[in-house]
């Protein structure tokens, strides 16, 4: 089978399949299990400076075409997250991406500085969570200047650790936003975050089911949106792309590679195909690579732009 090992910002991921942020990324044991189930790297759930409780249940709702969630960025704070990183290192040699978020540019810098001390392989900057609107206002990721400032602040604080900025589709142009991140020092782009927020109502009570009322949309429903976003990011920048958004099959992963992704993140796919989705997608992706004239993942990356 084709060699699928891929280097992103100097970090080797084999296979190039990453556990997406927000899924099973709360404990070292659960992330290590995801690696045993075939993931080439894991992303932790986003952490903030201080611990957060998040929203009440219901906070995750499967529906006919995907998933709606408003977990509310619950996390143990950067100190707790740093302990999880240290524990993960004792259990697994797979690369770990630490996701961070904050309420201001300065705070992003402080969280980045603290998490950098725990030596994650990559720091992912979540400027695009749609589920904490009432607390933080519209995501920074919709604003070029704010995203640029956050990217610079995190880069300054991260030292030698590569920085990936996780973008939202909901900005004037995700391609231009990626270019802004590149110009501000970003080393990679993660695209995309959940879309929305969206809503689901219960007919009998006539109320939203999510305790937060609204939540981010993920899963199969957003795959074509995510694919288009990755395609645009690739057109505007030369940065490596971690593609996330509704990927659950080798076919979808292959489309992301052709659109320009270096590695592919899987989140809701853990629900639709189970936790062994990683080894299944790796096999399917490998079969696809073998079936192409190039027989090389690297040669196929971005081939849709040829």
């Amino acid at each position: 089978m084709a060699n699928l090992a891929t280097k992103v910002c100097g970090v080797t991921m084999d296979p190039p399949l990453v556990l997406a942020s927000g899924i099973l990324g709360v404990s070292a044991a659960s992330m290590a299990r995801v690696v045993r189930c075939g993931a080439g790297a894991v992303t932790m759930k986003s952490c903030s400076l201080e611990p957060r409780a998040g929203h009440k249940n219901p906070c995750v709702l499967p529906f006919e075409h995907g998933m709606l969630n408003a977990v509310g960025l619950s996390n143990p704070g950067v100190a707790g997250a740093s302990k999880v990183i240290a524990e993960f290192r004792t259990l697994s040699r797979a690369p770990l991406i630490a996701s961070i978020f904050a309420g201001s540019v300065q705070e992003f810098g402080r969280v980045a500085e603290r998490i950098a001390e725990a030596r994650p392989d990559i720091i992912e900057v979540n400027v695009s969570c749609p589920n904490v609107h009432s607390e933080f206002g519209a995501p920074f990721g919709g604003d070029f200047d704010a995203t640029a400032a956050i990217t610079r602040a995190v880069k300054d604080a991260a030292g030698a650790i590569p920085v990936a900025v996780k973008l939202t589709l909901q900005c004037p142009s995700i391609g231009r936003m990626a270019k802004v991140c590149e110009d501000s020092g970003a080393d990679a782009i993660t695209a995309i975050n959940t879309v929305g927020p969206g809503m689901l109502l219960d007919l009998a009570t006539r109320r939203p089911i999510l305790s937060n009322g609204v939540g981010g949309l993920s899963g199969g429903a957003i795959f074509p949106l995510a694919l288009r976003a990755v395609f645009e990011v690739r057109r505007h920048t030369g940065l490596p792309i971690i593609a996330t958004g509704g990927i659950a099959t080798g076919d979808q992963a292959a489309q992301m590679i052709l659109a320009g992704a270096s590695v592919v993140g899987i989140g809701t796919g853990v629900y639709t195909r189970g936790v062994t989705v990683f080894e299944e997608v790796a096999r399917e992706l490998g079969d696809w690579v073998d079936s192409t004239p190039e027989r090389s993942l690297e040669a196929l990356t971005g081939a849709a732009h040829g």
Partner: protein
Amino acid sequence: MDDRMRTWPLLEVVEHNPGLKSFYFETDSEVQPGQFIMLWLPGVDEKPFSVSDVDDGRLEVTVKAVGPFTRKLMECRPGERLGLRGPFGRPFAPAEGPPPLLVGGGCGVAPLRFLHRHLERRGLSSTFLVGVRTAADLMFREEYAGGLAMVVTDDGSLGERRLLPDKVGELLANQTYGTLCAAGPEVVLSTLKKLAESRGIPSELSYERHMKCAVGLCGECCLEDNGLRLCVEGPVLRHPLPR
């Protein structure tokens, strides 16, 4: 009922003891003993509960008032609509061969009651032991005081005055069982697991953790040592454990 949230009318409420009630809903889905459902009180919260029986299209959930959510639930009346999704998780799967020993401790009586009745309805025999601190803590006291199960209490207020693990040890020493199926406090489960191991029989143990998504995504219910998700690979774990 499925993974998606829907509200269902509460058909009936039966009070067993103060602060201990069974709630009945109509159900159209296949639920296995040991599985759980997520119960939503609109505007309040959503929590996981074991199913204590499914019979004739009626799903029964038996709840003890222990916190704000369960106290609020105690106020619900027939006709009110509550949200249900599920069933979730791996059910009890006793091995074929000699009958299993079913052990319910405290609130762990609920899923074992379902398993006991489920086996009975299929003409399969089992030995059922329940253990609580005191008689007032026993769910379905009227059924078990009548001899449907062996009862032990810490204080001797009902049945034999014994600690649950001691009684299990005695039963395992005197008879061969195919599987030990149990639910209850984790400290009790860990003793029962060792007892089953020492007798060379498999154990099927139901564990509890805080659950948020119930569909294997959020990671809240993962076990600390091996990362297994209790909402998917559990709540009933069999040894040897899956990957």
